[in-house]
């Protein structure tokens, strides 16, 4: 069975399934978040809010954005770090000795590109330089955008809480110096670093048969960079 005989859905199953799971879990968060928010509203003697009001609120916004930003930070760091850092024996790593951006021949760019290579891999100049880093750069830009959105939504949610507790609101710049902002950021970042570090080292000694995230079951622990 060749990949060319696959229909659209089977050929894109990984992206589609995770896209679907993302939407389902986002709706789950919205439903559970509305119930949790309203339980606290009632406890504070305040009126409950509608589902629509909650999903357009800063409370929901910051809860979503603070998770998104950390995911994009994780992939941004991982994509760039794995260019220069290796983990001997890990399927997540290149072979020791291959650190760096590698040669044009190895990367199939410029004169080494073939007819199926993307246009910007063939053209050279700034286009090839940009395309050569586009995955990491996009992750970095998405991290900065979602972190900025997280700071704005977090600022609004923090001030709503301040006002509810009869305290003065703070400016956006003032919020960037508040413990609330850094607590939200660090608590998400640390979990991403743990997940990435765990995966890099677990992949040395453990296997998942058939998964490209793992080495072949029979591969030696010292084998690096193999997937199966």
């Amino acid at each position: 069975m060749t990949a060319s005989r696959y229909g659209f859905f089977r050929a894109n199953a990984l992206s589609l399934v995770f896209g679907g799971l993302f939407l389902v879990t986002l709706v789950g968060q919205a439903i559970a978040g509305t119930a949790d928010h309203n339980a606290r509203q009632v406890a504070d003697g305040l009126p409950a809010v509608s589902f629509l009001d909650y999903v357009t609120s800063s409370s929901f916004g910051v809860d979503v954005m603070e998770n998104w930003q950390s995911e994009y930070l994780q992939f941004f760091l991982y994509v760039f770090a794995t260019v220069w850092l290796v983990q001997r024996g890990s399927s997540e790593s290149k072979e020791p000795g291959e650190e760096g951006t590698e040669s044009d021949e190895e990367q199939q760019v410029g004169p080494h590109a073939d007819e199926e290579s993307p246009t910007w891999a063939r053209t050279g100049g700034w286009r090839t330089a940009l395309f050569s880093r586009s995955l990491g750069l996009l992750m970095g830009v998405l991290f900065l955008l979602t972190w900025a959105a997280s700071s704005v939504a977090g600022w609004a949610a923090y001030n709503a809480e301040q006002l509810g507790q009869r305290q003065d609101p703070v400016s956006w710049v003032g919020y960037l110096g508040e413990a609330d902002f850094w607590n939200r950021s660090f608590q998400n970042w640390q979990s991403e670093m743990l997940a990435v570090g765990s995966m890099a080292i677990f992949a040395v000694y453990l296997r998942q048969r058939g998964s490209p995230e793992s080495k072949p079951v029979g591969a030696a622990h010292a084998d690096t960079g193999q997937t199966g």
Partner: protein
Amino acid sequence: MGTPTTLRLAAAVLVTAALGGCAGLEEDDVGRVAGAFEDPAAAPADRCVLLAPATLQTLESDESAPCVDVIGQVPLPGGAVEAVAVFGGQAQVRLDGDTVFLTETPSGWRVTAAACEPRGGLPYDCQVEGP
């Protein structure tokens, strides 16, 4: 190329204007309610109806009397609106002589705390407030 760019720009301007307009209208509503509550000429019943339900209940419970009988004893100097802050369903209005906190209810903005004195980094000390 020109048309999509122009459309995107126009959409961005419209969204920004809509959001700014909404925020402006909300601040006007909040300021109006705080001003009416603190209006020295306001009748007790008109003030009581502007209290949030939990605040009204706390006031009547603490004083063991209907709101209309006790609201007149609360010093509400009022004055011109100096600043309005609205975040989520919560708001603060700084008047010349007082600081008022409000919450959004199905009936509109209602006062949760009034006759408030700042206490540094601590919550305001308010003579009228909810739980």
